[in-house]
Structures are given as C-alpha cells and as structure tokens.
C-alpha cells in the first residue's frame, strides 16, 4: 500500500493534480530526503523517455495483410456456422411443423371438398340411377321386327364387344332348331336364322309375346345399348 500511496503522490505531484498544500509538503520532504528527490527526478526522466520512445515506435499496418484476409476467407467461423446451422435447424423444424400443418390443412380442405362433391354427386346419381337387380335378366336381340330375347346375367357389356362374339354367344345359348347349321354360320347368318319364324320354338314365341305385352304396358326398362355397325340392338330388360 505504501508503494501505491507513494506512487499516487509522485504521479499527482508531477501531473499537478495534488492540492497546493500536499505539493508544498512533497517539495519540503524532497529537500531533506535525497532518496525522494532522486525518485522525483527519476520519475520525470522516465516520463520524458516514455513519451519520446512511444512517439519513436515504428508504425505498423492498420489493415490486415493479404495473407490474413486469405486466412479469414478459409475460416468462415464455426461459431457463425454453428449459429447458421442452429438457425437452419430451427427454421427446418419450424418449417416442418408449420409446413406439415399447412399441408395437413390443404389435404383436409381438399378432402372436405371431395366429401361434399362426392355427397352431392351421390345424391344426384341416386335420383337418376335405376334399381339394380341381382336376378338374371333377359337380353333382347332385335334384328328387325321380331327381337330375340336371350336370358343373360346383368353384366355390363363394353360397347366394342356388342358386335360379334358376345352376340354369337348369346345367340348360341338359344336352343335353336337348326343348331348345327347356326353354329357353322357367322353372326349375320345367325341373326337371319334367329329371326326366321320357322326357327323359333314355342318358348321363344312365348317370350316374344310377353315382351310385346310388356312394351304395350310401357314397363320401365334399363338403358339400351346399341351397336353402330348394323341394326343390332341389345336391350337388357329387368
């Protein structure tokens, strides 16, 4: 503590910050104490030397050298990188959360729209759709004035399969009188054979008759599928 107090006193004296009484006291002590006087003189010498020495210091760069800038360029700062990584992760997490939420919202909205549309379409369809029956139905092959009624299952028949093989199969199911000759002929011949009055059996005639009665009573029927290449018309009667 003595050194600090003494230092403060000498510094204050040389700086001129000591109170006048204290400054006079130091001068009085120095006059009687050669050691103190020497220290005061030494301090003055040190101050002057330091001032000149600091001023004489060689100047140095105040801007980083190219080497340092290159070093900076390859050292982007892991702390900064960590911060960026942290930001990225948090952004990613937030993005995932909000993104998922947004995605779910969009999907939910689309789903709701789909449900509403589906319900509306179902209602619309229900009004127009005929009653489906699981029981076997009869197909009517009209080849002119007298259609041939063939019992078939209510399987939807693509339009491109109306002509030809399916029709032939339907016709072949019929217990035709001249079955052997019908088998050897093509569809048109079959149609011709089928529509011939002499080739009909009693059951067929009965079915034709029943159909005609039904038409007269205007019974509802399912939609008609029509062929395009000829006059063949298939009507599926419930």
């Amino acid at each position, binding site marked *: 503590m003595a050194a600090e107090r003494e230092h403060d006193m000498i510094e204050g004296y040389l700086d001129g910050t000591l109170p006048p009484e204290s400054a006079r006291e130091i001068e009085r002590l120095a006059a009687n104490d050669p050691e103190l006087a020497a220290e005061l003189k030494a301090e003055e*010498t040190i101050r002057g030397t330091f001032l000149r*020495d600091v001023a004489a210091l*060689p100047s140095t760069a105040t801007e980083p050298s190219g080497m340092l800038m290159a070093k900076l360029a390859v*050292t982007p*700062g892991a702390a900064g*990188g960590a911060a960026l990584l942290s930001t990225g992760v948090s952004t990613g997490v937030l993005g995932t959360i909000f993104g998922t939420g947004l995605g779910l919202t969009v999907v939910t909205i689309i789903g709701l729209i789909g449900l509403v549309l589906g319900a509306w379409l179902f209602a619309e369809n229900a009004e127009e759709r005929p009653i489906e029956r699981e029981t076997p139905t009869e197909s009517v092959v009209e080849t002119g004035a007298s259609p041939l009624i063939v019992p078939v299952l209510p399987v939807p028949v693509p339009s491109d399969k109306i002509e030809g093989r399916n029709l032939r199969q339907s016709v072949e199911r019929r217990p035709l009188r001249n079955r052997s000759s019908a088998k050897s002929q093509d569809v048109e011949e079959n149609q011709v054979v089928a529509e011939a009055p002499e080739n009909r059996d009693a059951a067929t005639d009965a079915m034709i008759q029943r159909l005609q009665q039904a038409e007269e009573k205007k019974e509802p029927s399912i939609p008609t599928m029509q062929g395009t290449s000829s006059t063949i018309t298939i009507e599926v009667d419930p």
Partner: protein
Amino acid sequence: MIAMTPDELAVRFLEGDDHAFEMIFAEHNPRLFAYCIKMVKDRSVAEDLAQETWVRTIGLRTRERGSVENLYGMIYRIARNLSLDHLKSYRESKRIDIDLQELERRIGGAEQKSPEEEMVLRALEKLSFDYRETIVLHTYSGYSYEEIAEMLGKSPEAIWARASRARKKLRQLVAEEIRQEEGALTLLTKGSKDQPGRHHAG
C-alpha cells in the same frame, strides 16, 4: 456504419464477420506490435509475432460458440506466449543477437538515444517480465488499467497495485543510476578540484 462496442465487434468477428475483424485489427494491431517490439526488442520479430498472433486469433473462429469469452484477453495472451517463446529461444542465442545489435548500432541502423533514455530503457529491461509487461501494456500499447485487468483476468485494483510496484521499482532503478552517475560526477568534480595541478601538469 453503426458504431459497435468492442464486445459486439468480438462477437461479430467470431461469427464470421470479416469487417469486424478489420476493425479489431485496425484498433489493436499497433498496440499489439508495440507490445511485441518492447518485449522482444526486435522490429522484424515483433512484426512476425503480431502476424502470428492474428493468424491464431482467426483460428479462434473455429471454436464453439461461447468458448471465447474474452477475445481481447485471448489475443493478448497469444502475443504474450509467443513473446515468451521467442525470449526463451533468444536466451539460447543471446550472444549472436547481442553481436547483431552491436553491429546494427555501428552501422547506424538503431535510433540514437540520449544517455538518460538509455538509462531508463536499461532499467526497464531489468524489471521482471510481469512488471515490464504491465508497464508496456499501459505505456506503449495504451491500454487502461481496467483493460489490462480484463485481459489478464484480474481485478483492476490488483493491476493498479502491480503497476504501482512496477513503476516504483523502475523509479528506484533509475534513481539508483542517477545517484551513481551524480556520485561519479561529484567524485570527478571533487577529484578535479582536489588535483588541479595534475591537469595543469598534463
């Protein structure tokens, strides 16, 4: 450019802001160089040490965030360790360095100083490393005692006490030299007064 505090600059530098580094460099490189040159007493060595200090400072960027709490203290400690390493190797080749310094003086490379200045600088070199360092950091590098305390991780009071003791020691050394010089002058004067005939005779 918005003025930033030293702490803000340090954080920005560590986070990868090169401009912050340039600002820190402009502020502290002259101080660092002054410190190095006063500690190792060689300009080219001081420049190399300062450069190496900055290279290692840039390397601090790779550390984890928060691991560098006192950037300026760390810069100073890097310079201090480099200076100590150099002085250690300097002692091993002291003869050669002294010869080179003498040669430099002879060819006029070194700046001419007054006897009083040389006396003070000699006394400064006689101080212990800690004392000399405190005086150099305050006087030549221009750091306040508070800044030195922060750099060294000590209280300002402790640094102030160390600086006072260092200055007192330096003062005593210089005063001793002054007394010896005055004594020699007195003796010389007294001797010349006591033996006037010899001068006349010579």
